[in-house]
């Protein structure tokens, strides 16, 4: 899956958006995941991960950290989001020190992520580059809506839902932050950046 790769929107806005992942490889290092996941979570929380989750349980914007930790298993997929490159540096430094042996991936704007890797002392192995959207683009939603929906790469958030939330914010029925949290609760992976989303809603209502 590539659900964190193809985020869209203004580049400066994307520079406040970094997705982190811990990955186990089937048949190689996919057993006894819970203690390793707990190490990752501790480091990510210390670095200030705004949202994180296990797709099997849900994100921290919906459930408590302790509840998600309790349900960790070998099927677990841990991932989350940072809003600053400094957090990425801190996260990578600590994870390297822990030497857990799991694959670690950071998705974001390359001009920010690659220097962060260098500062943290990790050497990139491979990159999946986003070459954009191809095909029949006429029916895509507008750019602002797309910049929100693509933060849940599995597209659990519909364009109409985004419009609905923005409409309620415009009418003063909820704040941008409340709207962003409502949208974030539909992204089970925990990689929806509700901080950036609140900014987008605020700037466009």
């Amino acid at each position, binding site marked *: 899956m590539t659900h964190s790769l193809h985020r869209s929107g203004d580049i400066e806005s994307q520079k406040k958006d970094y997705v982190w992942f811990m990955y186990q490889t089937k048949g190689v290092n996919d057993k006894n995941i819970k203690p390793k996941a707990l190490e990752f979570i501790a480091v990510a929380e210390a670095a200030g991960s705004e949202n994180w989750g296990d797709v099997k349980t849900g994100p921290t914007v919906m459930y408590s950290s302790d509840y998600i930790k309790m349900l960790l298993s070998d099927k677990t997929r841990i991932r989350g989001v940072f809003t600053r490159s400094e957090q990425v540096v801190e996260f990578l430094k600590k994870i390297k020190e822990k030497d857990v042996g799991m694959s670690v991936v950071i998705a974001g704007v390359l001009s920010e992520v690659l220097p962060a890797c260098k500062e943290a002392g990790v050497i990139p*192995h491979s990159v999946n580059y986003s070459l954009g959207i191809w095909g029949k683009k006429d029916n895509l939603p507008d750019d602002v809506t797309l910049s929100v929906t693509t933060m849940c790469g599995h597209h*659990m958030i519909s364009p109409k839902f985004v419009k609905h939330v923005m409409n309620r914010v415009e009418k003063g029925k909820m704040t941008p932050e409340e709207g962003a949290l409502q949208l974030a609760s539909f992204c089970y992976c925990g990689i929806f950046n509700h901080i950036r989303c609140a900014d987008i809603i605020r700037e466009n209502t």
Partner: protein
Amino acid sequence: MPVVNVKKCTGCRACHIYCSVEAISYEAKKAFIDPDLCTECYVCVRQKVCPEGAIETIEFDTFNKQFQHVLSDPVETHGVTGVTGRGTEEVKTNDVTGRVKRGEVGLSIDMGRPGMGVYLRDAEKVAMAAAKAGFKLAPQEETPLAAMMEDLSTGKLKDDCLDYRLLSVIVEGKCEEDRLKDVLLALKDIANEIDTVFSLGLISRVDENGECGALKCLDQVGIPQPHRGKVNVGLGKPLSLD
């Protein structure tokens, strides 16, 4: 499969805004989920979007429906690859699997994304066009769509699955770096012949500075240089040095 219990549905229209693929409509003042449009992503079920609890589930009646659900609902784990979401590890574990080696380029063709959904007939068109240009499609141990292929060397899918719609599915594989230009040109052509979109990812080994020589090819075929990437930072063990 999600269905509406018409005895419980009040026709309040609260549910339809949550459907990513607009599969919910209204007939005779009741909500209706069109099984041909529904991708079985289960957002409506999991998020309990009906205040009356009128959206219920019934068992999948075919293998293809089950496949739709496993691929469209990120909470599910794919049975063969053991991976959630669209069921593929792509670059995420390349530091351990070494699937894409130096001198090779992987492509992750994310059909139906963002948010438009994809009928498998369009995924077949793209897979066949890429394969014809020298792209080696990944086997079913690595990516779920291969399980629906009659012939991995051509990308031809089984006829009975072509009219099923998924929220997205990944056409995945790799080629030698010197074939990349041909494959990208084939994708440019076929992109005009599908009734949906795809998001394209190019996977490559990189040097110690994160630089990738394969990106030079993009200029030759008129594709803008990428500004986003998913960086595998090489901390997995045992580390593949290929």
